[in-house]
């Protein structure tokens, strides 16, 4: 059998013999992607544990298991991990690394060493974040849980005054931001420089378009939040008074600077996810994607307009009415390119030969959950409605539908789609589908009631509530239990797939894009042994069969 990237690798320096060191020093984009996935999902489960703790606490009004202060730390921990450690590196760090170079016929990213460095920067960020969990009390030698209690948004002035470990959390977010910038930079250059001959921008697979638009956001928006966090740190130590009103500063300025990044950041999360959707839908409808250009350009315009809408997080901050109206209008506007994508996906499936394999199930499920997440977002883009709904569970339900039911679900879709590519094996599809149904039902039970509770006024970030909200929280609790069981089952199935799955060949899904035309499965170290000349569109099907075929030298033979 031919050697795969699991058997040999290039290292950042030296030629270590041990497998372990070969992984630690590897510059291979596929291995780095896998390492990101392992670390990210480990943290994901930590954050899920924090969420479950909150759900237990919220089972009944009053105090059950944790006190109010710990609850504040729990949602901060949950939010910080989910956002900064998990979903911002997210799909780009994993599939941007593993799949994007394969899709454009590159041997690696443009700066493989920088990629290695970026991964370790990410790890350093994670370690700093972990170090902010506890304070070591020298007097009695005890570890005291002292994570920040500010919420993941670190709003001033509270974040400047609390004695919890905000400083380390801010530093961690800064370092993770740097890693994100460098990832974006690497991908931008890769996409500009390393496309196979003949592949112009409009012959790229749509996932690459998603990564491309994302990379621009990573590059241009992240520095703003980075410097904001630094200013907050300086303010905390030296009392400059940039954000603290008692010192003459303006707390709303912090909110502006924070959301100038953090709103585009949600597109940074969703655009690659949409990219995954645009890969899966044509592959399992056996039809060329409908409206390729509109999907590609809508990614770009979402990234562009997405810059100008941050003010919708500030409707209750006392911002001027003119500004509110403009931000509200622009926010509605972003819904248009998103809607375009949805119609394109649906139109692709129309008259297609739909194959309900696991990735397709995930994609279809997400069309429902993300539609709810996206449309509920439009409702809170209305200024009047938002005055009532801001900081209620309605908003929380909205973004969990968008983030969990959109990004994470599509991430799972991508995992099931590219699993055979990465490992050369197939998981047990029956079980994987069952896991999907459990997760889908659990998710809706978990979050839908929160729309209603929030609509009736259940505020977010509260550890206690009025008795009338109990029924919603209890349904939500059972939803969480089902959801987490589904998660465990899904990961169990995947791990079994890695260990015992059957070899599946290079193109088990009959897909058309270049990553499915590798010489062997799993791929060899330097990807395609021969790079094809790309004079075809990415998703050409004819009567349900891929049009473009290659011989072993990657010359077209159709």
């Amino acid at each position, binding site marked *: 059998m031919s050697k795969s990237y699991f058997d040999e690798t290039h290292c950042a320096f030296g030629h270590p013999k041990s497998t372990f060191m070969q992984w630690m020093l590897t510059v291979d984009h596929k291995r780095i992607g896998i390492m990101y996935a392992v670390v990210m999902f480990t943290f994901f489960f930590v954050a899920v544990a924090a969420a479950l703790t909150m759900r237990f606490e919220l089972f009944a009004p009053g105090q059950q298991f944790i006190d109010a202060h710990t609850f504040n730390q729990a949602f901060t921990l949950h939010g910080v991990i989910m956002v900064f450690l998990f979903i911002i590196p997210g799909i780009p760090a994993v599939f941007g690394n593993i799949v994007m170079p394969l899709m454009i016929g590159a041997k690696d990213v443009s700066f493989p060493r920088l990629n290695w460095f970026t991964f370790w920067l990410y790890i350093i960020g994670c370690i700093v974040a972990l170090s902010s969990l506890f304070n070591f009390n020298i007097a009695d030698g005890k570890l005291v849980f002292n994570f920040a209690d500010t919420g993941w948004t670190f709003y001033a002035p509270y974040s400047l005054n609390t004695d919890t470990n905000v400083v380390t959390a801010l530093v961690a977010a800064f370092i993770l931001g740097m890693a994100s910038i460098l990832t974006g930079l690497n991908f931008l250059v890769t996409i500009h420089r390393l496309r196979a001959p*003949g592949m112009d921008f409009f012959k790229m697979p749509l996932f690459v378009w998603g990564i491309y638009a994302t990379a621009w956001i990573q590059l241009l928006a992240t520095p703003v939040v980075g410097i*904001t966090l630094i200013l907050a740190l300086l303010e905390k130590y030296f009392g400059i008074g940039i954000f603290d009103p008692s010192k003459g500063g303006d707390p709303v300025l912090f909110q502006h600077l924070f959301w100038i990044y953090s709103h585009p950041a949600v597109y940074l999360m969703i655009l690659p996810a949409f990219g995954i959707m645009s890969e899966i839908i044509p592959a399992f409808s056996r039809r060329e994607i409908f409206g390729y250009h509109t999907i590609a350009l809508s990614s770009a315009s979402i990234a562009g307009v997405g810059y100008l809408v941050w003010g919708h997080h500030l409707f209750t901050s006392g911002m001027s009415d003119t500004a509110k109206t403009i931000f509200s209008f622009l926010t509605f506007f972003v819904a248009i390119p998103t809607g375009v994508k949805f119609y394109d996906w649906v139109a692709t499936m129309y008259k297609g030969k739909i194959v309900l394999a696991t990735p397709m199930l995930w994609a279809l499920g997400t069309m429902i959950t993300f539609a709810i997440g996206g449309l509920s977002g439009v409702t809170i883009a209305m200024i009047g409605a938002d005055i009532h709904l801001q900081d209620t569970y309605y908003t929380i339900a909205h973004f969990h539908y968008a983030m969990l039911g959109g990004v994470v679900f599509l991430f799972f879709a991508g995992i099931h789609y590219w699993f055979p590519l990465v490992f050369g094996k197939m998981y047990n599809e029956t079980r994987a589908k069952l896991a999907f149904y459990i997760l889908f039902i659990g998710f809706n039970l978990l979050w839908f009631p929160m729309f209603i509770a929030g609509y009736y006024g259940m505020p977010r970030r509260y550890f206690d509530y009025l008795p009338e909200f109990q029924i919603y929280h209890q349904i939500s609790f059972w939803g969480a239990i089902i959801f987490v069981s589904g998660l465990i089952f899904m990961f169990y199935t995947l791990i079994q797939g890695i260990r015992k799955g059957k070899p599946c060949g290079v193109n088990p899904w009959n897909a058309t894009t270049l990553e499915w035309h590798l010489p062997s499965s799993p791929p060899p170290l330097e990807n395609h042994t021969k790079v094809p000349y790309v004079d075809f569109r990415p998703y050409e099907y004819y009567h349900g069969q891929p049009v473009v075929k290659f011989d072993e030298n990657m010359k077209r033979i159709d």
Partner: protein
Amino acid sequence: MAHDSHEYIPEIAVDRNGNEHVVQGWQGDNYGGKLGFWLFMLTEVMMFGAMFMVLTYYFTLHHADFIKASSELDRTLGGINTVVLLISALTMGLGLLKMRSGDVKGAKLMIWATMLLAVIFLGVKALEWTNDYKEGIFLGLQGLQSGNEFSKPFGEILFFGMYFTMTGLHGFHIIIGIGLMLWLLKRINSGKVTPEHNILHFNIALYWDLVHLIWVFVFPYFYMTGAGAIHG
């Protein structure tokens, strides 16, 4: 396996008509290296841009305080530094030209000259900060904290706070620049950077230009807004 970028032979892709096309690899991709560094410069611009925005915002709120605070800065030292940095940009650029024309020795000389100017810049900066410190103007000193008897007005605290933050961050970039130049010299000496393969030299020159460009904005913003104001 070809590890060394110099041995790298690009691959050829053949289209259906039998035409050959060179496949761009990541190895030895000078254009890609430049592109990457330009993008990195863009992030720096965004970072400093955000700080300038904060500054502008507060300038509109505390006009008089800003002008007064600015008038207390030392325009002579700041001016000297501006000139020093300007000349260093020249030497850096000349160094790159010399490298390209094959004069490696001259290029090294110019890099040393740039480093010397950078050190002078830092020295002047240190002197300036020390003087400020003696006058009670420094991050963390009582004058720059609100709510005590020495407190300056809000606007001035903000002005000086941003002044130290931004010139500090700029100074940090100078220090990094010196480090980069030392590394560059090492690479030149070991023959990794040559008149033909000067991408590293190019990028560091680009970096130095940006550092210099930022100063071109920092200087008028902090030092000149209060020029001509009556000392009080």
